[in-house]
């Protein structure tokens, strides 16, 4: 194609709707679907560095939570004080409580659903999730600590990231499935989805290197 035509196409590429217009459609979608938080992110623009940063940050939070809330703490008064000082982990506590009350079957179902949504190819590996989740739930019942579940979340994602770095996609998917089963709405659920999408991208064929110009 001529340079003039290429330039025209280049300029036309800048024709995008205004932010206000996009926001208007977004509001309509939220009326149909409920809240669509923008924090979900898309893996294409957020690479491993971002995920690693998030995991490190979560690890720091977990460490602080562990120091502030020792596992031995059981009194209700102390728990109430802790809840006031850090609302971030309040959600974590609720999530943990919900998971503990779930039956093993329910946990397994959630694991499969999550795996289908984020990484369908990992469906067979999700069957291992209920056992791990049940074991973890039983352990947490003995010593409910807000920091422990976050630490567990971090550990699972780090396991997945480590496996991905080694090229062991299967192992990474198993770790993600465990996380999905154990913490379906965990603090690091968005990171799990990003990592899952990254694994999906790894399964894609290599980019086409052939020339784009047709003879």
């Amino acid at each position: 194609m001529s340079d003039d035509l290429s330039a025209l196409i280049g300029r036309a590429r800048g024709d995008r709707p205004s932010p206000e217009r996009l926001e208007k459609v977004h509001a309509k979608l939220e009326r149909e679907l409920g809240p669509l938080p923008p924090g979900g992110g898309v893996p294409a623009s957020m690479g491993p560095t971002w995920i690693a940063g998030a995991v490190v940050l979560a690890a720091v939070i977990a460490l602080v939570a562990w120091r502030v809330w020792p596992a031995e703490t059981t009194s209700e008064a102390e728990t109430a004080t802790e809840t006031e000082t850090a609302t971030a982990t309040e959600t974590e506590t609720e999530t943990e409580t919900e998971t503990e009350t779930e039956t093993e079957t329910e946990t397994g179902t959630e694991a499969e659903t999550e795996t289908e949504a984020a990484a369908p190819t990992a469906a067979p590996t999700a069957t291992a999730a209920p056992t791990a989740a049940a074991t973890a739930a039983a352990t947490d019942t003995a010593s409910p600590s807000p920091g422990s579940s976050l630490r567990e979340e971090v550990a699972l994602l780090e396991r997945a990231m480590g496996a991905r770095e080694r090229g062991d996609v299967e192992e990474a998917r198993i770790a993600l499935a465990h996380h999905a089963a154990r913490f379906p709405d965990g603090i690091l659920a968005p990171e799990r989805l990003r990592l899952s999408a990254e694994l999906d991208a790894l399964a894609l064929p290599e980019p086409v290197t052939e020339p784009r110009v047709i003879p």
Partner: protein
Amino acid sequence: MLQALAMPLFASVPVTLAPDHARVLGGLYREHAGAIFRALRRWGVPDRHADDALQETFLIASRKLGEFEGRSTHLTWLFGIALRVARGVRRKRVLETVEDWDAVDDRSGADEQLDTRRAAAHLDRLLSSLDESQREVFVLAELEELSAPEIAEITGAKLNTVYSRLRLARQAVQKAFADSKGDS
């Protein structure tokens, strides 16, 4: 005719999203809504229907998010949905005329915006010389800069067919462009 145009183009079905899906969809919208909107417009969806088409694309995506298999990128997947939405609009014979685009130019503000909109309008006039399948391929290849295999996946056409359509589309657009310069 007017009654048909006044009817809602897109029927929506209420959907309850899982929290994770809502987060993913919100992220997809934030990242890709602009590109999807642009492609819908270049595929011939009228400006007055573009918002609804964009909304419909993401509503369909919300219903199919659980079926996303990761064989393609999210953007490619969304383009595939949007393409079918655009085809649906075309089937309803509500394609916008070139004159409608000229009116859009007057609403522009800054010079740069004006230039962009005029370029888009000019490109739309050139694209109107293509048949639908060539237009779809040309927009994905030249405007959205997708690879031929990605376009094949989005359009459902074979790879060789994509190459063939793209070659013919480029020839036709180049000719239309030369003609338009000769006219002006």
